[in-house]
């Protein structure tokens, strides 16, 4: 590490600093540090999706599949609100462009 920008001393000092700070702070990720944005830890129930993910059941459902019959493959969800932030290409997403515009 002779030609390194890092000296053994600065590395060791940084690690020692991190360890001593870790000892002082509660190891909770809810307190986002510095410039990095933290998502997905602060709200109760946010992991409900993964909690319910892919559970097996031996129950039946119905005689009908969730088929949609006559429907257009046009996204109708929150992409409409975000549509104005992207440049939608011409074509099937005209709806979104108009609403966003």
């Amino acid at each position, binding site marked *: 590490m002779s030609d390194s920008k890092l000296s053994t001393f600065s590395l060791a000092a940084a690690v020692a600093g991190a360890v001593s700070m870790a000892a002082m702070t509660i190891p909770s990720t809810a307190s986002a540090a510095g410039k990095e944005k933290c998502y997905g830890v602060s709200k109760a129930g946010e992991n409900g999706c993964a909690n319910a993910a892919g559970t097996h*059941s031996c129950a039946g459902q119905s005689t009908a599949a969730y088929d949609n019959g006559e429907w257009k493959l046009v996204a109708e969800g929150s992409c409409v609100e975000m549509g104005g932030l992207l440049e939608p290409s011409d074509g099937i997403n005209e709806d979104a462009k108009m609403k966003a515009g």
Partner: protein
Amino acid sequence: MSTFAAGAADTAWVEIHSENFFALGGPRLAQLEDVRSHYAISCHGVGLSLGSAQGVDPDHLATLRGLVDRFEPALVSEHLSFSVVDDIYVNDLLPLPYTEEALEVVVRNVGHTQDALGRQILMENPSSYLTFVDSVLTEWDFLTELSQRSGCGLLLDVNNIYVSAQNNGFDTGTYLDGIPGDAVGEIHLAGHAIDGSGEDRLLIDTHGDVVADPVWALYQQTLEKLGPRPTLIEWDTNIPELEILLAEAHTAQRHLDAVSVAEDSSRVA
């Protein structure tokens, strides 16, 4: 769930779908450890596909073995159905034709499973929505033969008997008379839904409602014939408040108490 996991419910045991716990780690297994510390467990499989002509998947069996070794369930059960063909896993309990060939397949697969787990398993009668041209055995004869040849026990789902009887036109009393009562190690109850009317009327095993009156009546009849058995009420969709579930469980307990005069008290989960 947390109230329940803390042991608050007056419940003797808890049944899990084994495959929901085939994870390497994470909250589900942690929660199961918690439940296991308060209740006995029953592992009810939905994916081993013991009716598959291609045999049992050794990896699946090894994972199940790991779960059974870790949680030491009081009961291990599976379904009389198939899910796996050409390595595609169909996430439903698909029905078998009741033929000699199918019987040999299931006897072999159940035997293999019992050898691998080192214990008896219970096989559950399915809800079915059709029958096969090639079937030569009734479902009760098929189950009787399966139990005798493989040494497995039976998990009698009383709602499934009723649903299949309504859909396929057989008599529930004849079914009960044809079942080897001594082999039955557990009973399931559940709610069903009625879909369509007239010719198209079908009962669907939704596990999403209270147990229907005719199913309670059939349960009573079953207990009178077999004596008390551990009974589980399945409720997988439209899950109501815990109080409603417990009320259903208490109804089942009343039925059990009525027949278990001089016998060990069986409990309801």
